[in-house]
C-alpha cells in the first residue's frame, strides 16, 4: 500500500463514528434505488410466470381491435375450427364478479381481480386443465368451480351454496361443485368458472365472446397459423401469435409496474440528493479539521494530486461500503414491501426475490458515484492547502469571495426558475403549465440551494433573536453558532428543505383536491343519498328499481358510462335515467332541455373543443349495435360529475350490449317532508340483496373521496419521511463534527462557568434554528409551488385552492422537534467536554 493510501485508511479508522453517519446516508439512498429494482423485477418475473402458465399452449389469439368493439362473433368459432392447421379453439368469456359466500358475506379479493369465466373441457382446451383439490368441473347452469384461494377465503368447499353478483344478471345462486388449483397462486385472486352455456348467457350478448385462443395442429408454426386465420377475420378483429399474446399480457403488467418503479426510484433519487449534502458536509468538515495535517503532508512533499486522491480514496471506500449495505438494505426493503402488500392482500403473485446484475451495478455505481461527486469539491479544497498552513495557528475556513460567486450564480439560476415559473402559471394549457412549473421549481430550488448560505444569515439572525431570547447568553451563542459557517448550515438545512418542500407541496395539492371535491359536491349535488359501489362490479340496474320503491323516495336518477364512437371518434360520456335537475345543479350556458329521447347535452369545454353548437347533430355508434343520432339541445358549464356529454338512458341501452348494462351510481332525492333517517334504512334494506351497493349521504360521499386522497397522501408522506430521516442524520453529523471542531471553545466556556446543561442547550437551540430555517425555506417553496400547481390545474377540477395552514405549522413544529432530537447526542458529547480542553494544545 502506498504511503498516501495508508494515510487514507488510517483516517477512515480514526474517524469511524463520523463516517458511519455518512455511510448510513449513502446506504439509505441506494437502498431505495436497489429496493425499487428488486421489487419491480420480482413482481415482473412473477407475473411473467403467471402469463406463461395462463397462456400456455396458445399459438394464436383472436381478439377485437378496440375496447368498444363488441367482441368475437360466436359463429366465427366453427369457421376458425375449419381453418387448416387449427387443432382446437378455446372460447373466452368473462367479466368481473363478486362472490358471496354461504353466510351472505362478500369474499374480498383485496387488490387482485375477482373474475367470472367459462370452464373449458379438455377437448376444447389449448393448455393443460387445472387440477381439482375437491369436487369436479361445472357441467350445468347453477354449478361453479372456484379456485382454492377463493375457497379458503370464503370458507367454501364442494357442495356449498354461494351467490355470484354480476352487473346485468344481478345475483345468481350457484352451487360450488369443485375447487381447482391454479399453478401460480396470486394473493387474493378469485376465480369463478361457470359451465359453458351459463357463461355464455351471463358474460356475452348471445352473439359475441371475449376472445379466442387457438392451438395449432402438430407441425404448424404460430406464424402460419396466424396467417391462415387472418383471412377469415372481419376488419374489427385481429389475430396475434401466441408469442405476441404473451408479450401483450406482460407488457400491460409492465406498464402498471413501471408506475410503482418510477415512484420508488423517485424516492431513491430524492434520498440520494439529500444524502449528497450530508456527504459533502462531512468531507468538507473532515478536510477543514485536517488542514494542518494535510499541509504537513504537502510540506513533506506530497503533491496536490496525491492529497486530493487521498480524500477521494476515502470517499470511494465509504461509497462502496455504503452502496453495498444499501444493496442489502434494498433487498430487505423489497422483501418488506412485498410482505406488507401481501399482508394487505393486494393480490401480488408469490415468488422469490429477483436480483438482476443490473440492480447490483446500478446501486453500486450510483452510490459510489454520488459519494465521489459530493466529496470532489472538499477534495479539491484539500489539495489547495498551502504547505505553509502547517505552521500557521488559525485557519479561515470560508472565504467571502467564493460565497459571493455562489450567491450571484444562485440569484441568476433562481431568477431563471422564477421566469419559467411565471410562464407556467400564466400558461393557458394545464399540461404545459404544469411542466413549466416543474422546471421552474427545479431552477428555483437549485437557486435557493446556492443562495441558502446567504438566506441562512437573513432568516436565522432574526429568528434566533426571537427564539433565543428566553435562553439569554445561551440563545445568543446558539444563534451566532448557527450562522458561523453559513455554507455548512445551508447544506445541513437543505436536506430538510427538500423534504418539506415536497411534503408541503403535496399537502397543498391534496388539501385543494379535497376542498375542490367537497366544493363540487356542496354546490352541485342535490341528491340526498348516493348509492355507489366499492367493488369491481357496477350496480345491477335492478337495484335502482328496488330503491325507487322505498317509501320517502322522491326521485331516482341512474348514471351510466357510455363508451362509444361519436361521429367516428372514440369517447366516453354519461347516460342518464331519471330527472337530472333533482339530483345535480346544472348550470346551463346555452339552450336547455332534458336528457330524454334523442336530445344531447354537452359541457361548454367539449362544445368548444369540437366546435359543437346548439342544434348540431351527432351520430353515436358502436360496431354491432344500432347507431343513435343525437341533437344538441343545451350546453352546460363544465361539471366534474356529469362529464363531457349527456344522453338518455334509452340511448345508452341502444348502444350497450345487455350483458354490460349497469349503473355507476344511483342518486336519490327524498320526497318533500320524508324522514331521511327512515329513508336511509329503507334504501339499505332494499339494496342489501345486491351486496355491492353502499348507501351514502353527501357528507359520507365527500368523506369517502377525502379518505381515498388521504390514503394516497399517507403513502407519499411515509415515503418522504425517508428524506426527513436522512435530514436528521445530516444534522447529527454536522453537529457532531462541529462539536469536535469547537472543542477548545466549549472547554473555555466550561472553564469560565458554563454549566453542562447550558452547553447542551446551546447545541439544541443551534440545531433547532438550523432545522427551522430549513423547514421555513422548504415550507415557503412547497406552499408556493403547491398553490401554483393547483392553480394551473384549476380547469382539471382543482378549482378550490386550500392551503393547510394548521398542517404547515405542524410540519414546522415537527421540524423543530426533529432538530432538537438530532442534537441530543452531539449535545451530550459537547457537555462532556472538560474545561481543560480549553488549554490543551490542538
Amino acid at each position: 500500500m502506498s504511503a498516501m493510501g495508508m494515510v487514507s485508511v488510517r483516517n477512515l479508522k480514526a474517524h469511524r463514528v463520523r463516517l458511519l453517519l455518512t455511510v448510513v446516508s449513502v446506504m439509505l439512498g441506494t437502498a431505495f434505488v436497489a429496493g425499487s429494482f428488486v421489487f419491480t423485477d420480482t413482481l415482473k418475473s412473477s407475473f411473467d410466470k403467471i402469463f406463461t402458465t395462463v397462456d400456455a399452449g396458445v399459438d394464436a389469439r383472436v381478439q377485437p381491435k378496440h375496447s368498444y368493439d363488441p367482441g368475437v362473433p360466436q359463429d366465427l368459432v366453427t369457421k376458425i375450427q375449419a381453418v387448416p392447421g387449427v387443432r382446437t379453439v378455446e372460447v373466452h368469456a368473462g367479466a368481473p364478479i363478486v362472490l358471496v359466500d354461504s353466510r351472505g358475506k362478500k369474499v374480498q379479493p383485496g387488490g387482485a381481480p375477482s373474475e367470472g369465466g367459462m370452464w373449458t373441457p379438455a377437448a376444447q382446451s389449448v393448455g393443460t386443465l387445472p387440477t381439482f383439490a375437491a369436487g369436479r368441473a361445472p357441467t350445468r347452469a347453477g354449478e361453479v368451480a372456484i379456485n382454492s384461494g377463493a375457497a379458503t377465503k370464503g370458507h367454501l368447499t364442494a357442495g356449498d351454496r354461494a351467490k355470484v353478483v354480476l352487473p346485468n344478471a344481478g345475483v345468481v345462486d350457484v352451487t360450488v361443485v369443485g375447487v381447482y388449483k391454479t399453478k401460480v397462486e396470486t394473493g387474493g385472486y378469485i376465480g369463478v368458472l361457470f359451465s359453458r352455456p351459463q357463461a355464455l348467457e351471463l358474460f356475452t350478448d348471445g352473439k359475441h365472446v371475449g376472445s379466442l385462443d387457438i392451438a395449432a395442429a402438430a407441425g404448424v408454426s404460430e406464424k402460419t397459423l396466424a396467417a391462415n386465420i387472418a383471412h377469415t377475420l372481419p376488419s374489427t378483429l385481429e389475430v396475434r401469435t401466441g408469442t405476441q399474446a404473451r408479450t401483450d399480457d406482460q407488457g400491460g403488467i409492465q406498464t402498471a409496474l413501471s408506475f410503482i418503479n418510477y415512484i420508488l426510484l423517485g424516492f431513491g433519487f430524492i434520498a440520494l440528493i439529500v444524502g449528497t449534502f450530508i456527504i459533502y458536509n462531512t468531507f468538507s468538515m473532515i478536510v477543514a479539521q485536517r488542514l494542518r495535517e494535510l499541509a504537513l503532508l504537502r510540506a513533506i512533499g506530497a503533491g496536490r494530486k496525491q492529497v486530493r486522491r487521498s480524500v477521494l480514496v476515502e470517499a470511494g471506500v465509504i461509497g462502496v461500503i455504503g452502496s453495498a449495505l444499501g444493496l442489502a438494505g434494498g433487498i430487505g426493503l423489497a422483501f418488506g414491501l412485498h410482505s406488507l402488500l401481501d399482508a394487505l392482500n393486494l393480490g401480488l403473485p408469490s415468488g422469490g426475490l429477483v436480483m438482476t446484475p443490473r440492480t447490483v451495478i446500478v446501486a453500486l455505481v450510483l452510490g459510489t458515484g454520488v459519494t465521489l461527486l459530493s466529496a470532489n469539491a472538499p477534495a479539491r479544497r484539500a489539495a489547495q492547502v498551502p504547505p505553509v498552513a502547517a505552521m500557521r495557528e488559525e485557519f479561515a475556513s470560508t472565504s467571502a469571495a467564493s460565497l459571493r460567486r455562489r450567491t450571484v450564480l444562485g440569484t441568476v439560476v433562481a431568477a431563471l426558475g422564477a421566469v419559467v415559473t411565471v410562464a407556467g402559471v400564466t400558461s393557458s394549457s394545464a399540461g404545459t403549465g404544469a411542466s413549466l412549473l416543474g422546471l421552474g421549481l427545479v431552477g428555483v430550488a437549485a437557486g435557493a440551494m446556492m443562495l441558502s448560505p446567504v438566506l441562512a444569515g437573513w432568516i436565522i439572525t432574526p429568528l434566533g433573536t426571537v427564539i433565543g431570547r428566553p435562553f439569554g447568553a445561551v440563545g445568543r451563542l446558539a444563534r451566532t453558532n448557527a450562522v458561523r459557517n453559513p455554507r455548512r448550515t445551508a447544506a445541513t438545512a437543505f436536506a430538510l428543505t427538500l423534504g418539506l418542500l415536497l411534503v408541503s407541496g403535496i399537502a397543498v395539492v391534496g388539501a385543494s383536491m379535497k376542498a375542490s371535491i367537497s366544493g363540487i359536491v356542496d354546490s352541485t349535488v342535490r341528491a340526498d343519498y348516493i348509492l355507489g359501489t366499492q367493488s369491481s362490479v357496477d350496480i345491477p340496474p335492478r337495484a335502482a328499481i328496488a330503491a325507487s320503491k322505498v317509501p320517502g323516495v322522491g326521485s331516482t336518477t341512474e348514471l351510466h358510462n357510455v363508451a362509444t364512437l361519436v361521429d367516428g371518434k372514440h369517447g366516453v360520456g354519461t347516460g342518464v335515467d331519471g330527472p337530472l335537475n333533482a339530483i345535480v345543479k346544472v348550470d346551463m350556458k346555452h339552450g336547455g332541455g332534458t336528457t330524454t329521447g334523442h336530445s344531447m347535452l354537452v359541457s361548454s369545454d367539449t362544445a368548444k373543443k369540437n366546435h359543437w353548437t346548439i342544434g348540431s347533430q351527432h351520430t353515436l355508434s358502436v360496431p354491432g349495435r344500432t347507431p343513435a343520432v343525437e341533437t344538441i339541445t343545451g350546453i352546460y358549464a363544465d361539471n366534474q360529475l356529469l362529464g363531457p356529454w349527456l344522453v338518455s338512458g334509452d340511448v345508452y341501452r341502444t348502444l350497450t350490449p345487455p350483458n354490460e348494462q349497469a349503473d355507476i351510481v344511483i342518486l336519490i332525492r327524498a320526497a318533500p317532508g320524508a324522514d331521511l333517517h327512515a329513508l336511509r334504512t329503507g334504501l339499505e334494506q332494499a339494496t342489501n340483496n345486491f351486496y355491492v351497493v353502499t348507501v351514502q349521504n353527501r357528507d359520507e360521499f365527500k368523506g369517502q373521496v377525502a379518505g381515498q386522497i388521504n390514503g394516497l397522501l399517507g403513502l407519499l408522506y411515509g415515503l418522504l419521511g425517508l428524506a426527513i430521516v436522512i435530514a436528521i442524520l445530516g444534522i447529527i453529523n454536522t453537529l457532531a463534527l462541529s462539536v469536535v471542531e469547537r472543542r477548545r471553545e466549549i472547554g473555555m466556556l466550561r472553564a469560565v462557568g458554563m454549566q453542562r446543561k447550558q452547553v447542551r442547550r446551546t447545541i439544541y437551540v443551534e440545531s433547532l434554528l438550523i432545522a427551522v430555517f430549513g423547514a421555513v425555506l422548504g415550507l415557503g417553496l412547497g406552499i408556493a409551488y403547491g398553490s401554483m400547481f393547483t392553480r394551473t390545474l384549476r380547469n382539471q377540477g382543482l378549482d378550490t385552492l386550500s392551503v393547510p395552514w394548521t398542517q404547515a405549522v405542524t410540519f414546522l413544529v415537527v421540524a423543530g422537534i426533529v432538530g432538537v432530537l438530532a442534537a441530543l447526542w452531539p449535545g451530550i458529547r459537547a457537555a462532556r467536554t472538560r474545561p481543560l480542553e480549553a488549554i490543551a494544545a490542538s
Partner: protein
Amino acid sequence: MTQVSTLSPAVASLVAASATDVVKLFGSGDTAVRALDRVSIDLLRGEFTAIMGPSGSGKSTLMHCLAGLDTVTSGSVAIGDVELCGLSDKKMTALRRDRIGFVFQSFNLVPTLTALENITLPIAIAGRKPAQPWLDNIIATLGLTDRLHHRPSELSGGQQQRVAVGRALAGRPEIIFGDEPTGNLDSRSSGEVMGILRRSVDDLGQTVVMVTHDARAASFADRVLFLADGHIVDELRAPTAETVLDRMKGLER
C-alpha cells in the same frame, strides 16, 4: 518556603486560595507520574503571584488544580473558604463562573461574539446583568473603548488578550488565574497586558495568580513561586526580571 499550616480565622480571611498537601498523579501503577508532590501554598488576597519553573515542573498542573479545572489525587484545595474536593461538577462550574476569572495563553475568545459580548460572557452565562460603572471602569483600563463592537478576528493579539483580561475582571472574581497570559504576545503587548493585571491588583485590590516562564512578565508580580519536580523549591518577593532569571538559571542547572 511558605508553610502556613495553622492560620487564625482573621488570617484565613486574607487567603484567596490555598493548597494543602496536594498530590497529583497522572496515569497509574508503575507508569504513574507524580506531577505534584505534597504541595502546600496560600495565595493571599490582593497579591499578584507568579508561578514559575522548568517544563514538566508541575506549575501548570498546580494552577489547574487551584482553579478547579482539574482534580487532585490527594490533599485539599480551597478557594476562599470553599473546599473544592468533592464538589459536584455543577457547583464547581458555578464556583468558577462566580468566583474565578481566567486568562488563557491562546486568548480563547468566542469568535462569533464582539469584544464587549466576550467581556460580559461569564456574567451573561450566569444570567446576570453587568454592573455598568464597574464595566466602564474596566473597559477604560483596558483601553478598548473604540474596539468594543469588533469581532476577535478584527483585533490584534494584544487587543484580544486585553479582551480576555476584561472577561476575567468583569465578574469581579475573588481570584484570577492566568495560564501563560503573555505566551502568544510580543513584548510590547505583553507589557500592556501585564500592566493591566498589575493595575487591577493595585487599584482594584484584585488577586492574580499566573503561570509563566517569561521572567519579564513575572517581574510584574509581588511574589514568585518556583516549582521543580512537583515541589515548591523557592520563593522570591519583589522580583525583578534579573533576579527571576538568576533563580531560574539556578533551577535549570
